[in-house]
């Protein structure tokens, strides 16, 4: 059968962000996939070299519009290591609470988009309604629905009042109920199962070899989660399970994300119970001593990697960011090759791709 090659993107009605996929198909089967990045490259790594540490932190926060806190927090943690600052425990707890709220909102967003990709618009509407609950909490805490600017070098900017804690608890009760419902939907709803079972298959060995991360890796039965592997912030103080699935397909990734939302609610409840009193910030000097540091964070989409090097001035000498989506592209290509053309959109969506993150 003759081969045809067709492009999807960079400008395409079905893609939310610009990225180019060149797909070669034999009939209905995909035989080769080529990805070309860079359509939203904003030179953020270079831009950071011209700005001081505090400015760079806010530039980095703008890498992603969904997991902004992960970026903001990773940069702040890196600068703190270089400065030798010990962050007050209350600040660590607040950071972790915001990070887990962000995880819930990111996973809900993904579940909605996945529903949309497979033509299950009811799921999309329901999930995005519930996502508002989390966004309202973020707005209450930080003043913003996204780009919270929560972490700063040396702590956090906004404290949690008793009323806020009560409001978070009340909202978590609602969310817990909804997440339990989505878990039921994800494992029993025939419309969903028919579309996601055995689609976008990624074997455990391939997931490991191709450097996949986050829910994509965990859905291929690898229990690797930075929060457990190299605990940071308040994660050493909480108990949680690393959610995995051995299904290795889109269904597995759906289940892992739903389980992670339940775990996130559990983590936030533990943190609120144990929330220590005290300061939320310590003063940081503008000049950062010479040194280099690696920071790993479990962002909602997977392991987020930061490398910072300071040459002793107030500006970073090198900021390297590797976002989870970039790590997941080789695995995505492996998923697509050999699959049906009709499964391409949901397979790509299943890694929860963020093109702006990828390009930086």
């Amino acid at each position, binding site marked *: 059968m003759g081969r045809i090659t067709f492009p999807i993107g960079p400008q395409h009605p079905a893609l939310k962000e610009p990225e180019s996929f060149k797909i070669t198909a034999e009939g209905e089967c995909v035989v080769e996939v080529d990805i070309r990045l*860079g359509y939203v490259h904003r030179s953020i790594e270079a831009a950071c*070299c011209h700005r001081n540490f505090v400015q760079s932190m806010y530039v980095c926060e703008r890498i992603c519009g969904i997991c902004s806190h992960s970026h903001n927090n990773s940069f702040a943690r890196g600068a703190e290591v270089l400065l030798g600052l010990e962050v007050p425990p209350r600040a660590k707890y607040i950071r972790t609470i915001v990070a887990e709220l962000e995880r819930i909102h990111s996973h809900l967003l993904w579940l909605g988009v996945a529903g949309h990709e497979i033509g299950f618009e009811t799921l999309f509407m329901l999930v995005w309604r519930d996502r508002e609950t989390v966004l309202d909490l973020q707005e209450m805490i930080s003043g913003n629905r996204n780009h919270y600017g929560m972490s700063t070098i040396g702590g956090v900017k906004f404290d949690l009042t008793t009323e806020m804690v009560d409001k978070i608890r009340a909202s978590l009760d609602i969310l817990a109920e909804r997440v339990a419902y989505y878990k039921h939907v994800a494992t029993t709803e025939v419309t969903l199962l028919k579309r996601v079972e055995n689609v976008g298959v990624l074997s455990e060995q391939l997931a490991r070899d191709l450097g996949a991360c986050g829910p994509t890796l965990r859905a291929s039965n690898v229990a690797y989660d930075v929060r457990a592997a190299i605990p940071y912030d308040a994660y050493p103080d909480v108990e949680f399970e690393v959610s995995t699935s051995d299904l290795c397909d889109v269904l597995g990734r759906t289940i892992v994300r739903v389980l992670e939302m339940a775990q996130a609610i559990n983590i936030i409840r533990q943190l609120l119970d144990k929330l220590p009193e005290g300061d939320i910030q310590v003063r940081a000097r503008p000049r950062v001593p010479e040194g280099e540091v690696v920071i790993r964070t479990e962002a909602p989409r997977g392991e987020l990697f930061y490398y910072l090097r300071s040459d002793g001035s107030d500006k970073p000498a090198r900021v390297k960011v590797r976002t989870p989506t970039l790590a997941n592209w080789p695995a995505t290509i492996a998923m697509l090759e050999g699959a049906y053309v009709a499964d391409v959109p949901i397979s790509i969506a299943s890694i929860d791709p963020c093109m702006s993150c990828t390009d930086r």
Partner: protein
Amino acid sequence: MSECAEQCIAIVREEYDGEILESGTMGQYEVVFSVPAEQIVQFATYIAKRGWWHLATITGQDLGEEIQMLYHFNAEEPPAVTIKAAVPKSDPRLPSITPQLPAATMYEREIFDLLGVQFEGHPRLERLVLSDDWPEGVYPLRLEELAKQAERDEEEKA
């Protein structure tokens, strides 16, 4: 230095039979090894097989005289391992680890794009990030380009 980092250095120094130029730590959980650039494939494959199976990324940075590559590996437990290998800026080339460790493919292409390092043996060393009409031989993350950008920024402000 944490205990796990010390153990890691001792084990690697004993087991690995190639040349290790330097070993140390970076922060609490990160062990750093420097190896000669031409032995990077041998050492990176050893580290990946020894348990640090996850290649998080490769960082490239211009240090003036040389371009340094940092290969960041980790696993389910601390410590994580970073391998440093430097190449002269006048002739930046070193062997590609992609044939052995396919996870490196995008990372090597990105460094090729932004810092102009030739990864020899990479199955497909082509542009990944920069646009097709970007001038040949201009590498945006090299120090001289960064300096030019800073100048332009100043002019815009003035």
